[in-house]
């Protein structure tokens, strides 16, 4: 099922037409159902409560609203926990049914892209094991990490195209007592945020209309298996992915464009851990400084683990070289949660971010010191042993409110 050169040239030599009937790539989902009909795989069906969106070439993609199994991100949970807690907090505000599982591993794709100390069969088996764990619960997987999302979509292509790989993965999954199961759609959390954006705006308690933000679209969201990302003719004329930008606009934020929007953040997988001279240079010189020079935003927003980390953490060292830096970095989920009144520290967890976020909160009219003092009270109680930790009971209630413009 390898794509021929002729098919590739046909695809690339015409303007993008948003018509599923003439889409230039195969619809991988049809191939999944064909394999299922042959008894080769199981396809987990989309929950009844879902919304349909349009992807790059005009195909329809289903996004589940609830009954979701949350495939967490190791980088988010490990280093930016407010990213994860904001995603769950948003679900909880609407009483949506979700699972936060303990039978999930990371995709291990970060390591694979960093060191290649793995192989195709291992990567596919890790993915299918996670999908099988979701399938066993009946909940539909929702992927928090952009790299997991892109990596899994690429592995899905490989599994469909290469029978030997399917056979090998099936052999391993048999040993684990699990089926070779793939979900009907591979869904990124930011797609859920995208389809929920108007509902978020209905519950908005913090006016964000004075904020100018730039968007960094995550490479592994829309460059890998590009045809599966959400596009909307009303956002950038349908020439760039609509996720994140549409969400910010729904929340009343002014999204400003900048010339290096297509550039990656500089993460580099191995580089960000052990060769950060490259990561820092790229993040500052090609992204942050360009944004600063061209639009001087109050905030930059993205939708992936590595992008938040890289863009946020790289700014400190650049100050020593008098570079133009100082743009706080958040995920779309954190911005949405803040807009709906989430506690800046119990939920959004600003204190794990490095670039100064205080001017942004000041501009929103949020008395962050008050909330920080409250949070310090929580920490004191934890230290004293009178409180075991912060729970959803402490965090669920929206607490921040400013005047929202009509």
């Amino acid at each position, binding site marked *: 099922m390898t*794509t021929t*050169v002729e098919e590739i040239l046909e*695809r690339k030599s015409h303007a993008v037409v948003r018509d599923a009937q003439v889409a230039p790539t195969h619809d991988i989902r049809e191939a999944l159902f064909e394999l299922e009909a042959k008894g080769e795989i199981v396809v987990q069906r989309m929950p009844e409560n879902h919304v349909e969106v349009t992807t790059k070439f005009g195909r329809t993609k289903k996004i589940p609203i609830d009954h979701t199994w949350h495939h*967490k*991100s190791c*980088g*988010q*949970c*490990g*280093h930016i*926990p407010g990213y*994860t807690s904001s995603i769950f*907090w948003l679900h909880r505000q609407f009483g949506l049914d979700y699972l*936060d*599982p*303990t*039978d*999930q*591993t990371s995709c*291990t794709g970060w*390591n694979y892209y*960093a*060191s*290649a*100390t*793995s*192989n*195709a*069969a291992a990567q596919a*088996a890790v993915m299918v*094991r996670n999908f099988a764990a979701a399938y066993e619960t009946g909940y539909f997987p929702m992927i928090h990490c952009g790299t997991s999302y892109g990596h899994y979509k690429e592995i899905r292509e490989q599994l469909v195209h290469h029978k030997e790989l399917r056979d090998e993965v099936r052999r*391993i999954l048999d*040993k*684990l007592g699990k089926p070779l199961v793939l979900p009907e759609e591979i869904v990124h959390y930011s797609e859920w945020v995208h389809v929920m954006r108007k509902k978020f705006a209905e519950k908005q308690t913090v006016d964000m209309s004075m904020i100018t933000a730039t968007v960094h679209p995550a*490479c592994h969201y829309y*460059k890998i298996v590009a045809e599966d990302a959400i596009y909307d003719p009303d956002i950038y004329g349908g020439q760039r992915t609509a996720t994140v930008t549409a969400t910010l606009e729904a929340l009343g934020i002014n999204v400003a464009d900048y010339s290096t929007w297509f*550039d*990656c953040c500089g993460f580099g*997988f*191995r*580089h960000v851990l*052990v060769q950060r001279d*490259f990561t820092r240079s*790229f993040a500052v010189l090609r992204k942050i400084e360009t944004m600063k020079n061209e639009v001087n935003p109050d905030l930059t927003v993205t939708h992936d683990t590595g992008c938040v980390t890289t863009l946020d*953490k790289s700014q*400190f060292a650049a100050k020593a070289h008098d570079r133009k830096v100082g743009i706080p970095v958040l995920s779309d989920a954190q911005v949405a949660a803040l807009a709906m009144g989430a506690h800046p*520290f*119990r939920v959004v*967890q600003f*204190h794990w971010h*490095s670039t100064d976020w205080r001017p942004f909160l000041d501009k929103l009219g949020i008395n962050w010191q008050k909330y920080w003092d409250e949070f310090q009270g929580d*920490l004191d109680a*934890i230290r004293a042993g009178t409180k*075991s*930790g*912060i*729970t959803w009971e*402490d*965090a*669920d209630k929206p607490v921040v409110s400013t005047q929202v413009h009509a």
Partner: protein
Amino acid sequence: MPTTQENWNPGKAANRHPEVSYEEKERLFFEVKNDPRYEDFLYGCYECGICVSTCPSARFYDYSPRVIAQAMAREDIERVYDIISEDIWNCAQCFSCLRCPRGNNPGGLVTLLREVAVKNGLQETKDVLQGYSRVIYKVMLKGNQVSPDMLQPDFFPDWGPWVGQFSANMPVWRKAIPVDTLRGVTDAAWKTNRKTLLELYTIWFETGNMDIIKEIDEGLYDLLADVMQEELEEG
């Protein structure tokens, strides 16, 4: 240096690694080319340079995804050996190069080249990955690439004084996260149950992933294999 008839080499690359036989270089090349994914990643090359213009690594290193696609397509064994022993570790794996109008995937080619470099234990690859072993240890044993306790000032000095705060406050700050699977966890990104970790170890052994680790770092392999085998035997 001006280009002259003598130094201009429009053909295949010169032998820059005479210590490695041509046969060995050719063997590595065909190991890459025979990967089932190879034919999905390379369809030829227009030499248009679109991949280079979008490549972050090309801006900061002597690195070109176009050269990689070209060398592979032309079966330039010597050049491919230069690439596999040096260039591949510069790639940021962002896959911006998928913008290729010919449908090539230079980032994917790099992945295949890296896999072969690792599997064959090339010395340059061992050198590059030397400082990275602790991360491999974490991801293979815990199923997470990073964990909160990795946020140490000596590991991330350039991330500013906040890293010291993260580190000093870690046990308490991690308890102050409302997500049940994260609360209080510092040595992994989230709580993973034991059965899941045993399944992960089974995958590493069954797919030959542990053999790959052994090739690249025998000490690391011994550490990992000891722990995993003991856990698997306990069941």
